[in-house]
């Protein structure tokens, strides 16, 4: 049950048969989420893609995220790997701390938090601004561009490569590997494995290099040298590199892309941001709420009943942060983007012990990318709304999004 063909077919009742890779759901998942949320089964179940539960109410998603002993993070991808797939030397490499459970989770997370603290990520602001300007320089004279591939896609990969101290010139390869794991690979196990092996083989070489040639102020060197404080292994460092690449690129790229897609269709919001720059902090949170890119998985540790649902050990739960963030029980007029929304306790970055460690970096990238775009290109619109293409499943956001200005 791991390919598109095996899982295709019309969905009659999404509460018992949703398909997260149905083309309509990938393009616009919100109507289906609303249908499930307001039905008698707000925690839906589907046998497609190896079977999963889909909570759609804010309160349920947050409650599951907080109950990390029952709802574990031993697998976090929304579709299972095919049984028996051989991974060779990298079989045990995960993506700590997002894939870690307590007690190891604590030090797995503790070691990477300092690089993502607000005061630490601030040093990437000017570089990100310069990068955004350089990208726009390339297309501004054309009067049109693909806000997805020419812009949003190009930004986070370079910021993450800079943080990891790996060659920025390899950005296109990194992007293709990450898409292989988080997009195409979710419905194509062969692509998923190949992409994963490319990532881990690349970082294994980086680890060997840092051991031979340690660097100053270098994340990989510093992690390798943290053995005096915690039981750090190569497998852990490799896993962290894997996580930063995989979690730091597709996600923020999608948030930037969705926000530009929204702004292209809402001149009143472009105007509002120009007239009231003090709105940026709340506007960023609102765009993150309305267009939350990420859905994570949890695995049920032991048979349990949750809100009347009989969950079995090993069951997969899809933590739809996009669905939670459009729940009218938590947010007034959830489908409206209200740039100065006063109450916005959104969970775009998750909740509980696995709350996104990179949220401050993501916020910075999203804000700078949108600010620079609006400074340089104050007026723009979609060339053809129907031709916008979307990724979905684990990460939701536009991929091709052509605009004219």
């Amino acid at each position, binding site marked *: 049950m791991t390919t598109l063909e095996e899982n295709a077919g019309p969905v009659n009742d999404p509460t018992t048969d949703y398909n997260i890779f149905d083309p309509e759901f990938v393009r616009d998942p919100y109507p289906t989420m609303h249908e499930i949320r307001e039905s008698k089964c707000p925690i839906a179940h589907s046998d497609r893609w190896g079977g999963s539960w889909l909570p759609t109410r804010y309160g349920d998603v947050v409650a599951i995220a907080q109950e990390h002993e029952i709802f574990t993070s031993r697998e976090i991808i929304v579709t299972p790997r095919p049984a028996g797939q051989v991974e060779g030397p990298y079989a045990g490499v995960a993506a700590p701390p997002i894939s870690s459970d307590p007690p190891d989770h604590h030090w797995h997370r*503790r070691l990477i*938090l*300092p690089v*993502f*603290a*607000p*005061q*630490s990520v601030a040093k990437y602001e000017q570089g990100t601004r310069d990068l955004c300007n350089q990208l726009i320089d390339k297309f501004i004279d054309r009067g049109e561009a693909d806000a997805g591939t020419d812009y949003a896609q190009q930004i986070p990969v370079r910021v993450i490569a800079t943080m990891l101290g790996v060659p920025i010139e390899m950005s296109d390869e990194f992007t293709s590997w990450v898409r292989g794991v988080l997009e195409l690979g979710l419905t194509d196990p062969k692509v998923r494995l190949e992409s994963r092996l490319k990532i881990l083989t690349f970082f294994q070489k980086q680890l060997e290099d840092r051991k031979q040639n340690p660097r100053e102020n270098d994340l990989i060197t510093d992690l390798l040298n943290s053995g005096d404080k915690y039981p750090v292994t190569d497998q852990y460092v490799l896993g962290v590199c894997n996580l930063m690449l995989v979690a730091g690129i597709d996600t923020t790229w999608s948030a930037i892309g969705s926000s530009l897609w929204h702004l292209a269709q809402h001149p009143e919001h472009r105007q509002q941001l120009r007239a009231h720059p003090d709105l940026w*902090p709340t506007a960023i*949170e609102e765009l993150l709420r309305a267009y939350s890119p990420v859905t994570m998985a949890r695995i049920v540790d032991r048979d349990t009943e949750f809100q009347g649902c009989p969950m079995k050990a090993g069951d997969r739960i899809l933590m739809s942060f996009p669905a939670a963030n459009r729940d009218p029980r938590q947010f007034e007029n959830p489908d409206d983007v209200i740039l100065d929304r*006063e*109450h*916005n*306790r*959104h*969970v775009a*970055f998750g*909740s*509980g012990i696995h*709350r996104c*460690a990179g949220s*401050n970096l993501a*916020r910075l990238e999203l804000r700078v990318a949108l600010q620079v775009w609006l400074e340089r290109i104050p007026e723009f619109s979609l060339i053809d709304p129907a031709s916008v293409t979307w990724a979905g499943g684990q990460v939701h956001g536009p991929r091709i999004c052509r605009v004219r200005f």
Partner: protein
Amino acid sequence: MCSIAAPEVFGSDELGHATVLIPGDVPAELHRKVRRAQANCPEDAIIIEE
């Protein structure tokens, strides 16, 4: 989030965890910002004592 909504009151330590910067009572002119921080804290971790 709180350090964005009310930077005069909330900061972050070297791990990025939120800290309270001012001892004692919050000055009246910052009440609105602190309420905003409270209403937007994703972990519902801010308690206002009045």
